[in-house]
């Protein structure tokens, strides 16, 4: 470096400044060197593919011949594709029910665990365990749990004198069965809620009790408002997650019976890797992206009305 700047020797006062400047430059180089893996990964595995996928969504392509540009043809085809609408309906119904249900259940368990119970870590372990072992094995277990004749669920219902439905074998009950199954993924929201509850200042709770507020009233007027940032976080996260269901649909139902569990991502996967409609699948992915993005934006935009920050931001 020094040899490139022979002028640096002329005035003695310039030397420390240049030395500092070159130190800053050196640190800047080091910074970019440190983050270079991410920059490369971002360009190669995220930005590049996204740009390519936007182009791909405007083409018809089966990977074997050259992509044929068809403009908005894929998007128009989607409007006329009954299976597309079915997959959108299935996924929306699933998310509309399972998101609030899982959140309410997670909050409920967190409130129970926050009552200074003994064996807290044991209960927490039990409730989080199903989240650790997700994947095909859990799908297999639930297929067997939901078995109409010999599954444990209907055996229990028969003890109560009820004749259980066909669950995943029935077009009417397959989606409710998968929604029921989604409750077993309550672990992560529950742990986040529990941390939120533990951040509620005890002084506020005591003040409310001195004012004569009942437990129920304290919960709604003190705890819930303080918990709204946590609720917002869990809500955004679970919306994003519940729109991406795949493994259950692939392993347990193959989208059936009668397309009653034709989840969006499952149909997208079919289009890409079964029918080799890569352009159509790419267009479907963009539609999903915009749906989830707009839902997230709506939730975040509305949050100013109902989310309360303790810091007063």
């Amino acid at each position: 470096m020094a040899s490139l700047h022979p002028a640096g020797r002329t005035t003695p006062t310039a030397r420390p400044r240049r030395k500092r400047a070159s130190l800053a430059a050196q640190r800047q180089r080091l910074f970019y060197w440190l983050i270079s893996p991410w920059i490369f990964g971002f360009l190669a595995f995220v930005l590049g593919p996204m740009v390519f996928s936007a182009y791909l969504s405007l083409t018809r392509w089966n990977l074997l011949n050259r992509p044929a540009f068809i403009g908005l043809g894929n998007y128009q085809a989607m409007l006329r594709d009954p299976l597309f609408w079915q997959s959108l309906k299935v996924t929306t119904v699933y998310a509309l029910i399972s998101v609030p249900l899982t959140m309410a259940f997670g909050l409920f368990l967190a409130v129970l665990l926050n009552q200074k119970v003994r064996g807290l870590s044991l209960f927490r372990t039990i409730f989080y365990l199903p989240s650790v072992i997700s994947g095909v094995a859990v799908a297999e277990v639930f297929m067997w749990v939901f078995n109409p004749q010999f599954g444990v669920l209907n055996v229990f219902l028969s003890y109560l004198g009820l004749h259980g439905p066909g669950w995943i074998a029935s077009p009417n009950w397959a989606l409710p069965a998968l929604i029921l199954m989604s409750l077993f993924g309550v672990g992560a929201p529950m742990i986040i809620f529990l941390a939120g509850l533990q951040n509620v200042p005890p002084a506020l709770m005591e003040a409310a009790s001195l004012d004569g507020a009942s437990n129920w009233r304290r919960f709604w007027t003190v705890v819930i408002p303080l918990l709204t940032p946590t609720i917002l976080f869990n809500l955004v996260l679970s919306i994003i997650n519940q729109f991406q269901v795949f493994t259950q649909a692939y392993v347990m139902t193959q989208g059936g019976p009668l397309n009653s569990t034709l989840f969006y991502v499952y149909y997208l996967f079919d289009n890409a890797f079964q029918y080799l409609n890569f352009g159509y699948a790419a267009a479907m992915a963009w539609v999903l992206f915009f749906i989830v993005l707009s839902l997230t934006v709506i939730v975040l935009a509305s949050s100013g009305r109902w989310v309360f920050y303790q810091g007063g931001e």
Partner: protein
Amino acid sequence: MMALASRARRKSSSRQARLSRQAADRLGRAVVYLLLVGTSVCFLIPLFWLVTSALKPTDEIFVFPQVWIPHPAEWGNFARALTTLPFGRFAFNTLVIAGLTTLGNVFASAMVAYGFARFRFPGRRVLFLVMLATLMVPGQILLVPQFILFYKLGWINSFAPLTVPAFFGSAFYIFLIRQFFMGIPSELTDAAYIDGANEWAIFVRIYLPLSKPALTAVAVFSFQGAWNDFLAPLIYLNSQKLYTLQLGLSEFQGIFHTQWNLIMAASTVIMLPMVVIFFLAQRYFIQGILMTGVQG
């Protein structure tokens, strides 16, 4: 006299109130425990069902009334299930993929996180925001174009599409580790700096050892994610000798679709390592969830 009597009356009534409040408290706690235990039972029944079904002889699977405790326990189910398909091979493949993914994620993400935590330059904020924005990009958008990219690279039917991207860090893990790094007091690094340590030495000798909880959280999450992943191996791996456990299990079900005792036996074995890791590293799982949750 009057005053004394009324005070005594008041005392007894307040004692009564205290007693009834105690009774209500005790009742409330009983309800709490009842609900907790009830829910726990609901959560444990599928697991109980899994393990007992795995041990049932074939003639006890489809009987009514249902057999709860298998008699005799058919331990041979495990051997039968695991030798029908080369599950040893699948386990090895899964370990290689999950191991490489974890290694890549931990080191690359820690390095990038260090860059974002320790250096302040005009472009840094924008880059950091871009990185956070990528967290919002759903995997489905990348599914097709990434497949085509790896197809053009000739990586289909190899572990490369499943492992190589991890070595460029992952936005989620970078964010998680960076949040932890921000909490390391600058006095520590200043002292090392004055002692003549360079940035690399500060990273390796101070930041990494102090960040074990965050790095362990990233390691368990990334291992768990790779172990349970189904969609990516399904797309990229075609030949059976490269299958992961999840793919193997899915194929196993296709072959033995009603032999639930064997399917449950295979499922049990595949879940077991995750359960063990969870019990060993539970603290880090919870810490990791919270570190991302707190920022919400």
